[in-house]
């Protein structure tokens, strides 16, 4: 080995070492939703601002992601530095001490700019445990052309009776045109998100103040029966296997007159893949005159597990991905309609963003949901379309399966409710909430 090659080798080894010491790699786990995928395309901006931080992505489908990050955090695995989690997980994990408090984000982050409903859902005992990436509620999306043809107009704030009338008028099964599409696929985050939110507007609740399940009450019966009535008479066939994405596809193909689902769907039904993009109207989720609407509140948020060894770098990343500059960056690259919605007041005060057709309805929907007071009657829990207790994923899925079976015609509504009541009561006893 000659001296020069030796010197060269030494120099390159040194270069390797120093770059290794400089650059820190953080692992970010995220769901494969459009807004997150867009973020991955904008990493050049992050690199320019933080040349010393490399980001490694783990992008997975929502259920697989949830399974992997939950296992990791509960066993203290420490594989991830930034987690994408929702408003269901944050209060539970925050309380367990599994998440790093984000109260010390820089001034420029402007935490007071966050929408109060969203911020409230991510805060436990005064600590903000996750920064919202995008927030959503649910609302009615409907076909203006079909409503017009039926001689109806959709009120800005419809009641469930209005919805049924519109669904009946727009249904024409011979043309594969269904008045209403709703979630039917079993799961705490699928049909139960919709049905729990809907039940709030019917005055129902999961539990009374002493954690006794309430599925034997008339409010739940009314909720389930009117859901089944809508879906059996005016819904698409095979709805018991339809989740968010299946309904989105149907709506984009022009097969649904109405669809009540996440506000983020608005940018898809008016986007390039939609055959009905210019015919979509928006309205608040329906109510029954009881003071609560059937809409939910959710925010995909970024959090740092306490097991992370690189918390400072992770914070820098979260600040970049969720502050105002990021919204402006997306707007400049992809247009205002593609900005992650539902997190900041300033976005909705921006006159440019106000031109987006669904902006106002999204904000109104988010503001009309209150995770701390979700129901007409008092409840011991937090959460609009979920109950923020660790047992809820299992409970919600069990009940969701029963209701999905009712939709598929395998069970009557009464049987489904009675079985739900029994199953939830058993679990709550086993978990020590009730004696």
């Amino acid at each position: 080995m000659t001296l020069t090659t030796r010197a060269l080798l030494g120099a390159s080894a040194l270069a390797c070492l120093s770059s290794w010491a400089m650059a820190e790699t953080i692992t970010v786990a995220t769901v494969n939703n459009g807004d997150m995928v867009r973020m991955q395309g904008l990493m050049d901006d992050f690199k320019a601002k933080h040349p010393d931080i490399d980001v490694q992505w783990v992008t997975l489908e929502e259920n697989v992601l949830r399974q992997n990050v939950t296992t990791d955090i509960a066993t203290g695995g420490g594989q991830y530095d930034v987690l994408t989690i929702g408003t269901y997980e944050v209060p539970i994990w925050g309380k367990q001490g599994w998440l790093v408090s984000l109260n010390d984000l820089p001034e420029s982050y402007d935490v007071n700019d966050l929408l109060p409903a969203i911020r409230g859902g991510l805060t436990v005992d005064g600590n903000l445990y996750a920064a919202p990436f995008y927030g959503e509620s649910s609302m009615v999306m409907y076909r203006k052309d079909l409503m017009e043809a039926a001689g109806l107009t959709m009120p800005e704030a419809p009641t469930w009776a209005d919805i049924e009338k519109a669904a009946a008028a727009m249904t024409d099964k011979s043309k594969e045109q269904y008045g209403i599409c709703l979630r039917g696929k079993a799961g705490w985050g699928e049909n139960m998100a919709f049905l729990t939110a809907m039940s709030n507007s019917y005055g129902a609740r999961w539990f009374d103040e002493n954690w006794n399940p309430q599925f034997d009450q008339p409010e739940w019966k009314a909720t389930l029966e009117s859901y089944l009535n809508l879906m059996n008479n005016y819904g698409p066939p095979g709805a018991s296997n339809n989740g968010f994405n299946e309904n989105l596809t149907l709506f984009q193909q022009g097969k649904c007159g109405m669809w009540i689902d996440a506000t983020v769907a608005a940018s898809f039904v008016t986007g390039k893949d939609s055959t009905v993009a210019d015919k979509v109207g928006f309205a608040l989720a329906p109510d029954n005159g009881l003071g609560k609407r059937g809409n939910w509140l959710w925010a995909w948020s970024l959090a740092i597990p306490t097991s992370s060894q690189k918390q400072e770098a992770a914070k820098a990343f979260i600040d970049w991905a969720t502050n105002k500059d990021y919204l402006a960056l997306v707007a400049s690259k992809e247009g205002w309609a593609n900005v992650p919605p539902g997190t900041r007041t300033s976005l909705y005060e921006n006159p440019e963003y106000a031109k987006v057709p669904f902006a106002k309805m999204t904000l109104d929907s988010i503001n009309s949901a209150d995770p701390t007071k979700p129901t007409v009657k008092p409840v011991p829990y937090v959460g609009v379309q979920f109950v923020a207790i660790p047992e809820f994923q299992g409970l919600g899925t069990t009940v969701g399966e029963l209701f999905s079976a009712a939709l598929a015609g395998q069970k009557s509504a009464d049987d489904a409710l009675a079985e739900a009541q029994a199953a939830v009561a058993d679990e709550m006893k086993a978990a020590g909430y009730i004696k």
Partner: protein
Amino acid sequence: MARALSPRRRLLTTIAAWFVALLIFFPVLWMLITSFKTEASAVASPPELFSADWTFENYTEVWARSDYPRFFWNSVVISIGSTLLGLAIAIPAAWSMAFVPTKRTKDLLMWMLSTKMMPAVAVMIPLYLVFQRVGLFDTKIGLVLALMLMNLPIIVWMLYTYFREIPGEILEAARMDGASLWNEIVYVLTPMAVPGIASTLLLNVILAWNEAFWTITLTTTKAAPLSAFIASFSAPQGLFYAKLSAASTMAIAPILILGWFSQKQLVRGLTFGAVK
């Protein structure tokens, strides 16, 4: 038992065979066709067999959205690595089972297969904890070990079957000539069993390539193979039939091409002693 057929029967049989083969293959073909459609024409009604706007857009988008070469490389390392390691351990075992059988050989084989009976989900948390504690989590070597152990019973069984077809006298002759046991296995047995070993290798590469539970559960980034790549494209928001088809095609194409070239070996490999 291939025999000559009359021309007319031959024609009829050919048509029938091709019809059945295409029927079985059709889902894969339909996926391939869908991967070249736009999302809108992928869900068009009535379905379009030959869409007017064929496009590579799905492939470019899938390529741009994720680090395909990394997933691909991990899949290659994990599936080939686990199979080679498995062969190295299984060849001696299969040799002794085939040529020095005892009363318990059959029970031993059955026991080996029975280690595959525990449902993966039931041992998920235990194995997850073990992998984490010993530092094998999200490493290629960890997955190589896991998949090797998962497929080891099958490898042993297949090799055992092949070795039994080799007449023991040849090995004995080699020993008479003074070959050591080691030399006997390496220089006499192995070359004779090449077709069997090759087909075992192939089948296990496929099984490892297609494994989609542990490869997702036990990895995050560094060792994640194509199964994780697929999991990042399933059930997203919006129309996805065409993109999912493109991603799926990219995930199975390498193994399909490998299978195509090694079809003959594979046919032998899948016998499990069915042939005498």
